[in-house]
């Protein structure tokens, strides 16, 4: 059962820590802020990759975390991270309450050669996201829209409430404007107010609907979210008949 993907993102010989300047901060949801970083020396990245951040206290104590990149690979020399506020966290409260435009943060990256997608990898592509698991998939969708809008793609997106759907308006706009992209958004803890957004957990019917929107079975499926979500979604994808080796997963949290 070889599970070797067709593409392994190129890896540097050595990943060095370097300073990156925060050049923009925008609020995306009540609990998510988007930070734009400009590293001193940025080699670019592949959609789906992440970076490590390192914060240092005056006495030398350090905390590290990994965050996925949300922006499309481009020539700006910057990347966006979406940072979800975790109430009892150590790093995310710093970003939400302390960090400002102009601050310098140590980063290294890009990292990750498996959960990645390039236009050359082709499609169709099925994306399944729970909550902030959308972040690396958003980089793929934005890359696709710029580089290969003819590649069919479907996004199944689950969040607790509409207000917690990161990039809700952008995704609804893409669903309207991009003929080969279809959005299947659902919220679990409230009745949605926006037409087209569903209510309830992802299930076999939602997977079937997304698959039916694609002209052929997906070449690759990317699933990202909290551990229980990814487990359930991967089982649904297997039950829908998608080949084991075509499903890539990224999990976070406990």
């Amino acid at each position, binding site marked *: 059962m070889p*599970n070797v993907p067709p593409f392994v993102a190129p*890896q540097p010989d050595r990943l060095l820590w370097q300073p990156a300047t925060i050049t923009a901060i925008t609020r995306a949801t009540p609990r998510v802020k988007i930070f734009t970083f400009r590293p001193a020396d940025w080699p670019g990245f592949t959609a789906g990759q992440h970076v490590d951040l390192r914060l240092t*206290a005056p006495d030398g104590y350090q*905390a590290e975390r990994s965050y996925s990149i949300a922006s499309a690979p481009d020539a700006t020399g910057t990347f966006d991270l979406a940072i979800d506020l975790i109430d009892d966290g150590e790093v995310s409260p*710093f970003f939400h309450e302390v960090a400002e435009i102009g601050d*310098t943060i*140590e980063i290294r990256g890009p990292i990750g050669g498996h959960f990645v997608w390039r236009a050359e990898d082709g499609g169709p592509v099925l994306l399944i996201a729970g909550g902030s698991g959308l972040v690396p998939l958003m980089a793929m969708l934005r890359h696709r829209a710029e580089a290969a809008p003819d590649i069919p793609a479907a996004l199944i997106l689950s969040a607790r409430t509409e207000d917690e759907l990161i990039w809700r308006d952008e995704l609804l706009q893409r669903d309207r404007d991009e003929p080969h992209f279809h959005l299947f958004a659902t919220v679990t803890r409230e009745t949605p107010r926006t037409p087209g957004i569903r209510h309830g957990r992802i299930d076999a019917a939602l997977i079937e609907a997304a698959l039916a929107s694609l002209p052929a079975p997906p070449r690759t499926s990317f699933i990202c979210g909290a551990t229980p979500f990814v487990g359930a979604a991967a089982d649904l994808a297997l039950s829908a008949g998608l080949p084991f080796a075509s499903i890539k*997963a990224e999990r976070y*949290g406990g």
Partner: protein
Amino acid sequence: MATRGFTGRRPTDGIVERLPPGQYLTEDFPVLSAGPTPRVDLATWRFTVKDGVRPVASWSFDEFNQLPRTKLTRDIHCVTKWSKFNTAWSGVTIDDILAEAGIAAPSPFTLAHAYDGYSTNVPTDDLTNGKAMIATHFEGQPIPPNHGGPARLLVPHLYFWKSAKWVNGLQFTNRDEAGFWELRGYHMRGDPWQEQRFTGD
């Protein structure tokens, strides 16, 4: 370089000295893998030891469970930055597997293979002398499928991606051949105390 306005939340005494650099303590047991959880059938499960391409020993699940059992309670460290203390495992040490196979470790490098196609390379010295096992139980219960059951490699002193889930074989190799994550930029050894996360660390 201090980060403006960051003070951090230091782990307390008794914890801080057990946390490798860049790690934080979690009470959860996060699940990490590159794809779905494979469905492994115990009726057809086999664990095979190979010297290069040559199989030298193989066990069914029932046979494997007859091998001498050992308990290991260790701290574990994931490259995604979480550490978990006092995880209690039981299984068969690599020493006992080699003894049952009737061989000494034939080469300095080992590739672990798994049912999902995953592989990871581990220096043989990091597997022997009681340092590693093929674990079948966690906290007294069979390891759940999402944590690598029915059997996973356990190399607790290295980053946890080396502890391959759904393991089905060890292959001794003459060269240090990169496994799944090692091909994708992760370190060939992965010692958390030396923060060997990525190539070149």
